[in-house]
């Protein structure tokens, strides 16, 4: 039982980070139906930003960690700055790479997003190099905008007719989504203690999977999907390794090596039975 709770806690923590990133995916998708491949890389840049801000406060790997109010203050400032900068980056990307393609065929912004993702990856590489970068260890609605966002998601033209500034709403969506990635970046760094320029790609993939699993466009679904993936990932590490003599049940090299495959198999199974994700709405198509 203790083991089970241990797995659950590990899974929930990882899952929460996935959920935070997945929220960004799902919000953007809900509004403009674009798989924002650059989102994971915004998160990666976020982790680098956090390291740099810690550096400004004089906190590095070798320095003594601050305590008490200083610690809380630094964390808060880092969180804010990271969120703001990531949000700015998100808006910039939207402005440069997606806005000109608002009325283009659907695959064009997707390729553009992939392009941005590649660019960010190389920026990360130039910034911190190809090494695994250690992260400083300092411890162990119903608003008007919300309604406008849902309106834009449902029918962009109708929303515009109702006086909603569609471009502004889309910008705000990118702002919030990217800011959440910035927050996730700080939490990730604090928990795992390192980062790397390819991090955005792998984590982005999981987060995107989480968003789809929950029903893309659905915020609660994204959080549920993230937690689910985190727990499955943690559980997978307990599948025994059949290459060890005497073990008959399990997978070769143990579950950890297969966790990605397991997550995707579960995803496919869920989608086969619920084609719009766990909490996604089945919208009948009208002719």
């Amino acid at each position, binding site marked *: 039982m203790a083991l089970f709770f241990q797995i659950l806690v590990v899974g929930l923590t990882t899952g929460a980070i996935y959920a935070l990133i997945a929220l960004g995916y799902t919000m953007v998708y809900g509004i403009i*139906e674009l798989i924002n491949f650059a989102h994971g890389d915004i998160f990666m840049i976020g982790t680098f930003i956090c390291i740099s801000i810690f550096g400004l406060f004089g906190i590095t790997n070798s320095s003594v960690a601050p305590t008490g109010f200083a610690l809380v203050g630094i964390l808060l400032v880092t969180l804010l700055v990271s969120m703001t900068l990531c949000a700015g980056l998100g808006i910039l990307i939207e402005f440069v*790479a997606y806005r000109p393609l608002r009325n283009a065929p659907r*695959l*064009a912004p997707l390729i*553009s997003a992939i*392009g941005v993702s590649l660019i960010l990856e190389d920026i990360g590489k*130039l910034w911190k190099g190809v090494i695994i970068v250690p992260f400083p260890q300092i411890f162990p609605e119903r608003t008007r905008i919300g309604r406008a966002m849902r309106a834009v998601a449902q029918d962009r033209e109708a929303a515009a007719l109702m006086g909603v500034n569609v471009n502004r709403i889309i910008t705000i969506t990118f702002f919030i989504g990217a800011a959440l990635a910035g927050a996730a970046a700080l939490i990730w760094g604090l928990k795992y203690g390192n980062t790397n320029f390819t991090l955005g790609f792998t984590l982005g993939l999981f987060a995107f999977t989480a968003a789809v699993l929950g029903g893309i466009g659905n915020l609660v679904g994204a959080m549920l999907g993230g937690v689910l993936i985190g727990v499955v990932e943690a559980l997978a590490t307990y599948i025994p390794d059949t290459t060890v003599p005497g073990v008959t049940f399990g997978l070769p090299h143990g579950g950890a090596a297969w966790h990605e*495959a397991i997550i*995707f*198999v579960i995803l496919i199974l869920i989608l086969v039975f619920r084609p719009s994700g766990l909490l996604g709405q089945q919208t009948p198509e009208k002719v």
Partner: protein
Amino acid sequence: MAIANTLVPARDTRALLIKWIVGLLVPIAVFTFVWSGEEIINQSLLTILGLGGVSDIAVLIEITLFIIVFYATVIALAGYLVAADSGQRGMIELWIDIAVFVLLPLFLVINQGLIIGLAVCAIIWVIYFFARRSVYRALHYTPPIPSLNLRVLDAEQRVDLRNRAIAGSFWFSVVLAVTWLVVDLIFYFIGQLPTALLIWVVIRTLLLPVAGYFLGRLAAVIALRRTVAPKNNGNGENSANGGARPTKRRRQLESLSATRFREEAQDLVPNDLPARSTGATRFYLILLVAFVVFYPVIDPFLFGFGTNGRLAGYGDAGYYVILALGLNIVVGFAGLLDLGYVAFFAIGAYTWGIIGSTQLTNVLNLAPVDAHLLSLLFWPMLLVAALVAALFGVLLGAPTLRLRGDYLAIVTLGFGEIVPIVFLELDAYTNGTNGIVGVRSPAFFGIDWSVITPVPYYYLILALIAFSIFTNIRLRDSRLGRAWIAIREDEIGAASSGINLVTTKLFAFGTGAFFSGIAGAYHTAKLGLVSPDSFSFGDSIIYLAMVVIGGIGSIPGVIVGALLVYTLNVFLPQQLAASATDPTSVFYGIQNTLVHYIPGFSFGNIRNLIFGTLLVVIMIFRPEGLIPSARRRRELRHTGEEGVEVGSLDVIPGAPGFEEGVHVE
């Protein structure tokens, strides 16, 4: 006498003759004298005369064939262009275009090599397009509308057109022969031309005009086929068809919308931009095919040493083309977004990897198969690998049938992740992270392919590409292909029209996977190994980028897209990184300056940055792809705004009174 009459150009033809002879002669002269045309001919002649030159008789035959095809096509092209030109566009405009799109690439490729040369060209072309557009705007110039110029030709005009074609080819070859004679004499007097070749110079000078006359007749046939003939006058060149063709053509034109009509008018003769008409495109295709087929023998003449390295590189670019064509079936034709296409590529690669090495016999504790026999097995296994991939395509496609749009994308993405993990972790069969090494290369009629020469692979990939293109075109126009396109456009509509969604979609997944299986088996055989690193999500993304950049659903588009993406992603970074180490290059300076500001900067390091930026830029400026299929272009670009509508003409083209209405003076 009749011949003499056709060869003396009418007065209005003279301007056209000057326009096209100068336009074509300059690039041909550059190719012949500055680059390698002359060199290739002289080498083959020297061999024939027994004075050295190339040693291999097969090479001799190939370069001779290439030279004949090349010059014959260009001479016939001259005749076609003179005949097909309506004379609406001016000389200077054409010459500027030829300078920018033919001469400039020629010089840059000669100087900088193929890849960097074309890359620089692409940048200059973009600037040129913008400059031209703003100049047109500043001058309030609107290009003439092709439809205004469409004429229905009676018998007399058809004879006239034929004579123009003959005159075009004839005079072009005369001018070419004279120029060549003068240049050769100069070469002779500075002592660069062996005396023995003077006989050839004389023969050639006499032979070219005669060849020009007959090639001109050929060009006339091609040009006349694209004219609109009047009613009841179906004979002329088309007598075999009993006149059915012109009537049908007219009826088609009658029913077209303005935009479609403008598109169709581009194919017809006479034409404002004959160099861009479909007739001329045929000539370019012949040139391209001749160039590609004979490339291994002419490469040493064109680019000097290092042929083998270049050929190997182009062989790699080839399997990208097959992958793009295969993915185009799924994404382009059927409209099913597939983000895990790499899975099928991996399946094809591992199929030959496991069978074609000692891996399988080792695992099953069998005696190893004879190595030579194993090499021969490649040919049936190529098909088997494709079929295995197709089978998995159907199997993995099955769960996605209920899904739409991006849910489909994530499931295919999932398969794209699962398959490589399975190959990686089932190391008993696949050797895990180390991959399978020592895979046999194919054998063919006793030719041993394991010798380090990429030529057999070059021809193998050419044959595979030709097969893929052919099957793709046939599939697209088949009942199945039309069903795919119907599903892409409107799934519910297609289903209500009696298309079985399940089988049609599964066929799309299966056929798409089939081609990636071929590509996979080829890839493994060429490398001689298969490694799990070559099959990541990033690769799937790159394949998708090839299809979208080229223009989804367009076969020529995805071929160009594949070559472009391969160039941007592989060739260009290599070339840049190589140039950056060379102190005489511009890039050396750029790299050294930037390193001061960005530590760790190098051109090898920013490969993705360059590639990503270009992806974004291409998508912003060409969201429908570089060469969109006609159907999508009509959807996405509303060309109806500029120019006049057909309805505003006095008589609608093809309507009963049309022929009288636009009769030539």
